[in-house]
């Protein structure tokens, strides 16, 4: 069972899934392990992380030292192909000309979707994050609680392979015992941050959770836990787990991982799903419309074969949208019918509404204590290893903003980039920019003495951030494109002002020197553009009330129960946690429900 061309598809599938990333991959995995026949439509090409990723290449082997270009928008070696904020022939628009009111939309057109390019930070939403309206008076409550999702977080973490620790921090949940893999040791700068932030500010720096295998997975134990009584699934998973090696403590996970230590959907979800014999995948398949039958149920998906422009239709008893939140929104809005003139599953008028994103800013400093440290390898797991979870969850009501935030720290002597060497002038002082022997001396002294911290915070759904179909613009397939509306609220700007203040405080606790002050008084300058962090969710939110939401608590659309949303579109808000792990847990939970409902004959 393999990738197939449209001509080779079966006449009928139990489930057709649009998208092969975190949500679609998880859905495909869970369903095929339960014996459900599945077709995945992926808009991009097959991408093989085991043979196509340049893991150990140095920048001098790449064009332009691997710098970002319009063709490779996250750098040459980033494991993204045909992807980016701007894709030729596939535009989107913004209603406002004002930069701060525009949304930047990253699309990942390849097998495995955004999991190829992902930073792999995998944090659970906390109990409060599901009750934003009740606790903070803004946004929405989710129709589920943390306890509903906790078992699926455990499952997803065990399958994916995530390192981290249990800290007992309010609203930053621990995993069940035995679920997480051991976290890597801290780097020197991270140890310094941990010591100083605690002593001077009372703030904890703890191991982050990331989808990287710091040890091999327990292929004897985990499959039995994840698939009790299902020998075939146990065998397939155990086999796949044994194909994954542990981290070699080198190379950025964004490059992709040929040894499968870092998670991606293709390596972890799609490979065992294909081996089950229950999965077909059609690459280059751009979904254009969800079709309905006479009973008003979803009957299948019409898609364009991008290799020749031909149009095809595939049928399934259930249709799952996991094309990434806003692509799924577009697909719903473009699926118009007599029954749904405003777009499929849109009787509430809420499709496209309530997009949220991480509220982000950053700051950095030079830390004299880290200068001239004895040379050693600081790669570790290369990406983020530690973070500061939101430390005021219990006293949010005392603050003038409603959402928490976390700080993600990165320090150390990193692999140099084309930008290395231009950041030392202000540190060195003097009346010249550095060059000559002095540049070489100062580069040795200062490289690795910088501490950067990224803040990412919660965003409550509001009426100002949404997407709709652009009335004029179409993409190269003739499909209407999305037009975004975006506006940061005072609540988010106040949060960013506080982020900036505390970023300065943490860096100062480490003895940091700054090239400028943080933007405490001008948060609009500090806040990252909507979409810049690539954490956007919402647009088809879940809820208890079918007039105010698009799906129920099982991610089934209210209007069309055999149409299920499995990406971030159902999130009723953004927490101070990264969205991917929650997408996986929700998809697993939704998949289990689909299996039950299919067995009962309800779908």
């Amino acid at each position, binding site marked *: 069972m393999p990738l197939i061309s449209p001509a080779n598809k079966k006449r009928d599938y139990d489930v057709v899934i649009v998208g092969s990333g975190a949500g679609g991959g998880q859905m495909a995995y869970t369903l095929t392990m339960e014996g459900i026949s599945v077709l995945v439509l992926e808009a991009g090409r097959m991408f093989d992380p085991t043979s196509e990723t340049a893991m150990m290449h140095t920048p*001098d082997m790449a064009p332009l030292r691997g710098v970002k270009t319009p063709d490779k928008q996250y750098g040459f070696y980033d494991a993204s192909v045909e992807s980016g904020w701007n894709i030729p022939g596939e535009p989107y628009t913004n209603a406002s000309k004002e930069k701060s009111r525009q949304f930047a939309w990253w699309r990942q057109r390849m097998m495995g979707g955004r999991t190829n390019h992902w930073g792999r930070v995998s944090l659970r939403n906390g109990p409060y994050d599901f009750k934003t309206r009740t606790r903070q008076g803004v946004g929405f409550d989710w129709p589920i609680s943390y306890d509903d999702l906790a078992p699926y977080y455990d499952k997803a973490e065990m399958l994916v392979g995530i390192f981290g620790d249990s800290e007992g921090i309010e609203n930053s949940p621990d995993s069940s015992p035995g679920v997480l893999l051991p976290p890597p040791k801290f*780097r020197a700068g991270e140890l310094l941050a941990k010591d100083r932030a605690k002593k001077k500010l009372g703030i904890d720096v703890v191991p982050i959770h990331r989808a990287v295998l710091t040890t091999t997975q327990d292929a004897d134990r985990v499959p039995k836990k994840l698939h009790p009584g299902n020998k075939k699934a146990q065998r397939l998973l155990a086999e796949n787990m044994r194909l994954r090696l542990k981290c070699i403590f080198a190379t950025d996970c964004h490059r992709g991982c040929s040894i499968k230590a870092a998670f991606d959907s293709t390596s972890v979800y799609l490979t065992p799903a294909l081996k089950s014999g229950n999965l077909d995948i059609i690459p280059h398949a751009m979904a254009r419309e969800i079709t309905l039958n006479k009973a008003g149920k979803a009957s299948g998906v019409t898609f364009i074969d991008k290799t020749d422009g031909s149009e095809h239709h595939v049928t399934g008893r259930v249709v799952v949208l996991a094309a990434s939140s806003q692509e799924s929104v577009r697909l719903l809005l473009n699926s118009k019918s007599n029954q749904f003139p405003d777009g499929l599953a849109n009787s509430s008028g809420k499709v496209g509404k309530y997009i949220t994103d991480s509220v982000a800013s950053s700051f950095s400093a030079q830390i004299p204590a880290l200068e001239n440290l004895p040379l050693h390898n600081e790669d570790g797991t290369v990406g983020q290893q530690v973070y500061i979870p939101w430390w005021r969850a219990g006293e949010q009501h005392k603050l003038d903003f409603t959402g928490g935030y976390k700080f993600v720290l990165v320090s150390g002597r990193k692999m140099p980039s084309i930008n290395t060497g231009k950041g030392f002038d202000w540190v060195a002082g003097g009346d010249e*920019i550095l060059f000559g022997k002095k540049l*070489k001396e100062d580069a040795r002294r200062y490289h690795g003495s910088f501490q950067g911290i990224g803040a990412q915070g919660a965003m409550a759904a509001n009426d100002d951030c949404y997407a709709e179909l652009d009335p004029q613009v179409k993409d190269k397939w003739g499909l209407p494109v999305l037009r975004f509306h975006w506006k940061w609220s005072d609540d988010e700007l106040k949060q960013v002002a506080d982020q900036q203040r505390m970023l300065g405080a943490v860096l100062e606790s480490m003895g940091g020197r700054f090239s400028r002050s943080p933007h405490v008084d001008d948060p609009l300058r500090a806040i990252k553009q909507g979409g810049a962090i690539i954490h956007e969710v919402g647009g088809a939110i879940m809820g208890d009330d079918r007039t105010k939401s698009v799906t129920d608590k099982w991610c089934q659309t209210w209007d069309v129960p055999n149409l299920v949303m499995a990406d971030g579109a159902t999130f009723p808000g953004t927490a101070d946690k990264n969205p991917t792990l929650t997408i996986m847990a929700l998809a697993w939970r939704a998949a289990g429900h689909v299996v039950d409902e299919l067995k009962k004959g309800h779908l």
Partner: protein
Amino acid sequence: MNNSEDLPRINRRLALQWVTTATASIPLLDVDVEGAERLRPKSPVANGYGPDPDLIRQYKPGDLWPLTFTVDQRRLVIVLCDLIIPADETSPSASSQGVHDFIDEWISSPYRDQKADRNSILKGLPWLDEEAKRRGGTNFVSLGSDEQLAICHELARLARKNRNTHPGSFFYRLRNLVAGGYYTTPAGMKDIGYRGNVAMPEWNGPPREVLERLGLDPQ
């Protein structure tokens, strides 16, 4: 180091092209609008590598798009590379690592982001020769190394004051490219103290001597 007392007499046209800095340091040649137009290079016409390039292949300057430098320009950039990153007792120079060819690749790039560097550098190279002729009656490459360094120091000072105005901007951009180009080579990585990108069975964090230096307890 030159100072204003050493300034040679200049003709009126050149005088108009020069900006004097607020301090008493040597004024540097600026390019007039007409000259800037004349020197502004045509944009490269080659295409980029596209959204789905071979990531495994190892690329060399000139593999993907034609290069720009003439023989003389290349010779000049080699000298500049080694003024900015000279060899010293611990590591080799920038030109020995082929950084000049990287700069040629960079300024020949078909992408928009490199255009400003291209314009600035192709404007700065003839400016340097003019400045050298003004000072020593010869082009920059043939100038004595003290004179070459003196011009670089002047430019470095201008760049520190304002990195957006020619000719300080030229030196700022060139310095960034030479440094970035150098520190991304194996020799440059070694020189700057990067010890990673090595597959290892375990990673044990910083060694004890690092923790002692920081006054931190072992993990």
